[in-house]
């Protein structure tokens, strides 16, 4: 499903830099990154703590603004978008999976999954149909009316995957998605995501330390001290 580098990149990053100020002391999290990610990739960004993985994901998703450099997604320059346009762009094009699941605890499983479609204004019947379908795909049929605290960690992360995928985004960003799961549950979840990637062609970008993720990734970008140390395609 991965498109060749001859096609237009889904994400293009040039000279990306980010400097934070921590108690008045400037901290250089990214020191100039240039790379492209193509539609359908299943890419892992790896590196030690503080290497800039999270900062990189924040910047390419428009959750934060870079100090220097540019990010294009689907040909659109993020720096030119207003806050409202960025919100709408994330809503329509990006899906997020977080380390701590980050579901809305007061909403049920189906309401959590349905939330983004509500923001998109998808009609009720269509929403219900897609929620049923995606919950079936992630193996959570029968859990619709439960609230997140009533689920195990693995089940919550499946809900997070369903939430990220239900609106058919072009790109799914997953920050350490298996960090809070045991290796068997994490492995199962990754297999499921890889299968969805193969089936739907959605692009997945992971930030991770997990060998499980690295083994399944098709591309590995290794960050070190805010720079790309290695970028390799895997078989």
């Amino acid at each position, binding site marked *: 499903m991965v498109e060749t580098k001859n096609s237009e990149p889904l994400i293009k990053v040039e000279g990306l830099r980010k400097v934070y100020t921590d108690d008045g002391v400037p901290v250089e999290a990214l020191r100039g990154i240039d790379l492209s990610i193509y539609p359908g990739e299943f890419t892992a960004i790896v590196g030690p703590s503080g290497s800039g993985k999270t900062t990189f994901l924040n910047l390419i998703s428009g959750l*934060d603004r870079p100090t220097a450099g540019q990010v294009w997604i689907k040909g659109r320059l993020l720096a030119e978008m207003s806050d409202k346009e960025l919100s709408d762009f*994330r809503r329509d094009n990006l899906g997020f999976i977080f380390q701590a699941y980050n579901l809305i605890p007061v909403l049920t499983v189906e309401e959590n999954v349905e939330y983004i479609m509500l923001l998109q204004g998808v009609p009720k019947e269509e929403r219900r149909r897609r929620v049923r379908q995606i919950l079936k795909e992630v193996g959570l049929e029968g859990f619709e009316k439960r609230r997140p605290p009533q689920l195990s960690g693995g089940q919550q992360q499946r809900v997070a995957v369903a939430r990220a995928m239900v609106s058919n985004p072009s790109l799914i960003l997953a920050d350490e998605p298996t960090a809070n799961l045991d290796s068997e549950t994490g492995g199962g979840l990754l297999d499921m995501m890889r299968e969805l990637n193969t089936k739907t062609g959605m692009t997945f970008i992971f930030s991770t330390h997990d060998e499980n993720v690295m083994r399944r990734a098709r591309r590995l970008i290794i960050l070190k001290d805010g720079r790309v140390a290695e970028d390799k395609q895997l078989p």
Partner: protein
Amino acid sequence: MLWTFMKLAWRNLLRNKRRSIIAGTAIGLGLASLMFVDGMIIGMFNNMIEAATATFLGDGQIHRVGFRRTQEVELTINNAASLIQQLEKDPEVDKLALRVLSFGMITSAANLSAVTVVGIDPQREQFLSQVDEAIVAGSYLQNKSPLEIIIGRDLAETLEVGLNDRVVVTVAQAKTGALSQEMFRVSGIFHFNIKEMDQGLVFISLAKAQQMLALPGEIHEIALKLSDRRLGQNKEHPFWKKYSREGNEALGWAALMPELSFALQFTDFSIFFMALLLVGVVAFSIINTLFMSLYERIFEFGVLRAVGTRKSGLFQLILLEAASLGIISIIIGSCLGLVLLLIFSHVGIDYSGIEFAGVTIQKAIYPVLHIGQFIRYPLWILIFTIVIGLYPALHAAKITPAEAMRKSL
């Protein structure tokens, strides 16, 4: 989308039930106090109006122009007979009493005192004032003898007289100013619990007063009890103009007792000021609750923003949480306010003997329960809660997603 935000707001509020109930109760107590104070002020003013009008004043009075200021006995009401006839036919007038008033001196074997001598028609007077009800010894004027007099308890103590004792009343006659004296027998002693009346008024029959003052058939004052008692408060009502002619002036109690009328006009202002103080106190409770809830969920707000919720959506969500807190507070406050008002409107609060705005409160004050208290103040609280919610809502809307989720994505 609004429905989803409303659902989220309610569920977020119920997430920490104890905190929401404590905050709701704190705000509710403010609301209940506001409702109670409102009921209390209305009750107090009803009580004062009743004390001022029903005791002796009436809902309104008619005099010759200048009499109220000078108390000159010559200033009797012009064309009194036709005026009385007209008043008796007027549907606005329920009852009326005729009076003659004069400064005078009362003397006993032991002492003397300056008084206002009031000549009254006992039959008419008992429908209008409470002189008959205030009798604590002896009896009200019976018209058995023209030489009956009723005096206040304080005056009786000053004069050291009791029932059936003799007293001499001296007045100056109209026009000539010649002194006129008469010996009366004390037939009754009254106690209004109003110092000025208990010490300074004596009542004799109207005919006797007219004879002593050389004013046959003339009167100084017509006191009115009106069919619609609110008319006494309305200075501009045509009723007062209608009878303010031929040198006479007709005035409602609001004009006769301007200090009481003035105090009443400030009722709304006092309630508003009190409301401002109370809501100022509860404001801290609202801000505290919303901010605690906000800081707890800052990460969640980051997630909501990350998945595409606009700033305006987050802003709406916090405002809806504030409104939901307002609604919980209104339910608690209205119930508390209702219970308080129901209890105290039944048992009353005893303030008798206390003087305010020139009126001595006679009976217990009964707070008044009315529908406005359950509309106006809850609405204030709701609006105020939403206005207070603007601050945390703006704060939440300003959070950048990356900042909120710094520990994760």
